[in-house]
């Protein structure tokens, strides 16, 4: 697993490619209307995160980053969909969002602005850190974080919302694997477990909402406001 000095530029370029594709999947999750397509994009994103971790592991000879890659390959494409099948109603896969909060071109334009903002935020940060931390991971990770948060605000269906949450974590991790390489393995495992608990709890909640309101468009729940309560009282 030792990389020769000639291989290092190649590994860095491949890592940049993985990070670039990661950003693309984040954009896709903002725009895709089909819930199942969002899941596929999320799985692709997680695999790209794992690829980036593996490449950085080769580059910096870090057995620990291989662990991160492995955990990602096992949990996200395999256990997350399995857990969703067990907890949430099957309906969440088949849903299509007809009326979105924003139409797709507008959402993508805002997403683009966010990604550019993330770049300008990330570059000075990376420059303040020692040279071995440099690379595209931090700016793209921040972009992933922002786009995940943005997904949460524009989507209404349960599955894209849940995936938005997990994508935020992916974004934080993409930045993390380049700047926080020596994080204890215990912590990594705990974070991975935590992601699975998120899927489980959200799945259970979505099922309860679906049983109760007959829809998985959880974003449309909006009765808890002062004005609404007042109207009810009258």
């Amino acid at each position: 697993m030792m990389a020769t000095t000639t291989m290092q530029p190649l590994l860095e370029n491949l890592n940049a490619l993985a990070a670039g594709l990661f950003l693309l999947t984040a954009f896709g999750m903002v725009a895709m209307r089909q819930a199942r397509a969002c899941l596929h994009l999320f799985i692709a994103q997680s695999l790209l995160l794992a690829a980036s971790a593996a490449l950085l592991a080769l580059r910096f000879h870090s057995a620990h980053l291989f662990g991160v890659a492995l955990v990602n390959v096992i949990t996200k494409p395999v256990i997350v969909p399995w857990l969703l099948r067990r907890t949430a109603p099957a309906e969440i896969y088949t849903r299509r969002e007809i009326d979105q909060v924003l139409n797709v071109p507008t959402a993508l334009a805002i997403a683009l602005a966010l990604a550019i903002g993330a770049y300008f935020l990330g570059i000075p940060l990376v420059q303040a850190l020692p040279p071995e931390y440099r690379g595209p991971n931090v700016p793209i990770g921040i972009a992933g974080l922002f786009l995940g948060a943005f997904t949460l605000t524009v989507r209404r269906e349960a599955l894209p919302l849940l995936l938005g949450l997990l994508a935020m974590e992916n974004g934080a991790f993409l930045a993390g694997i380049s700047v926080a390489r020596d994080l204890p393995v215990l912590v990594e495992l705990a974070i991975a477990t935590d992601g699975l608990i998120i899927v489980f709890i959200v799945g259970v909640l979505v099922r309860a909402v679906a049983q109760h309101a007959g829809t998985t468009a959880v974003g449309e729940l909006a009765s808890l406001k002062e004005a609404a309560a007042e109207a009810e009282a009258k």
Partner: protein
Amino acid sequence: MNVVVILWPPLIAAALAVIPSRRRWWQPGVTLLSCLLVLVLTVRLAWRIAAGASVTAGLGPGWSNWVMVDGLSALILLLIALVATTAAIFSVGYMEHGERTPRRLRLYYANYNLFVFSMLAIPLLAEPTLVWIVVELTTLCSALLVSFENTHEALEAAWKYVVLSLMGAGFALFGFLLLFAAMHAGGAGPYTWTGLIAAAPTMPPLVAQTAFLVILIGLGTKVGLVPMHTWLPDAHSQAPSPVCALLSGIETTTILYVILRLMPVMQGIPGAHAATWALVLGLTSVGTAALLLLQVTDYKRLFAFSTVEHMGIILTAVGLGTSASYGAMQQIVTHSVTKSFCFFAAGATLLAVGTRQIGSVRGLIRRAPAAGAALLLAGLAITGAPPLAVFLSEFAILRAGLLQRQYLATGLLALFIVIAFFGVMLHVNRMVFGTAAGAEAAEDPPEETAGPFRLPFSCALALLLAAIPVIVLGVYIPAPLDELLKQAAAALSR
């Protein structure tokens, strides 16, 4: 004895609560027992720390990178144990009311114990990323408690709670990873709260500042700081009342504790302005919450908004500087004990009248004297009426602010506190003493037809126990607690 022992009782109780049992006392019994055990352990721990002993010194090197207990953590642990115990007592009677299947009750008590476990782990752990994970766990363990009533509103509240808290947590994770990078950029050391303080001068300032802001926003969402507070009134009003007491009384404080841990770190970084950020965000929260208090129509939301206000007060106090630290710590204690009492009073009122609408509750003192009196005391206590606990701590903060010559901030804080006082008391006064509109009053002579409302024994007991610190801490602070507060306040500066 290893301090981690404190975490065992709630975990075991959670496992035991899942066991189906035909005896109705089984789940509440194990929960209560576990909470009492935790209370005894934490009191003992706090006592030793107040006496100057180091409780984590005896642990092996394998532990010191993961676990740490000082005055600040002991204080938070003590409050969690106290509120968890009174809320468990209140749960016994409260959960008996209404149609609840044994299965739902098992779910309730198992989640209750897991929630207490996750909160207890926060002040015990020393490694920031692990702390982040247990912060996530508090959200996940309490989500199903918020949605417990399974109504449309409760599900919506739980959903908002989960999505917004986890969204904040995503940012916070990035912040903690960045902090780790900042620390390792200046030379390695154990990634713990104390390690961070030691490494602060060698960190690249820009990275550390960004990390702090990201964490402040991320965790601030879960604390309920304005403008990230939108989920809080929903979740803290829709959950069953004992859970509200936990959420509002102690969960918010526990998360705020994580932010407070970063204050001494940021003091070591030039140009970090952490205190200014705390002051601005704190005052914004107090002001917004005070004004929003005036227009609520649901009395549980009233107390939920008051939580936003109090989190703001604590953060403002921290921002005012070192001399207000003691007041901030005192405010943490008084808010926790008082707010849990408030939600018990609100729960008792809900049991008595069956509605959460302020407009539908009039003359409570005649219909249900115990609930009415409790609600009145709660309203007075939480807004800082003189002989009660919150008055003393708010007074300490304002005095410290004036001594620091922060006239503008202190003046604004005082103004907002007064507005909040009128906001809360206006509603509470009408509910307790008001007379219903003419026609309604004529056809509703409650004493004759329905008979006086009887509060379940355990609810009354919880109210009584919770009222003791609310009243006592207003006139007298025991010496060990005073020592603990001093140590906790010292943990806020380098």
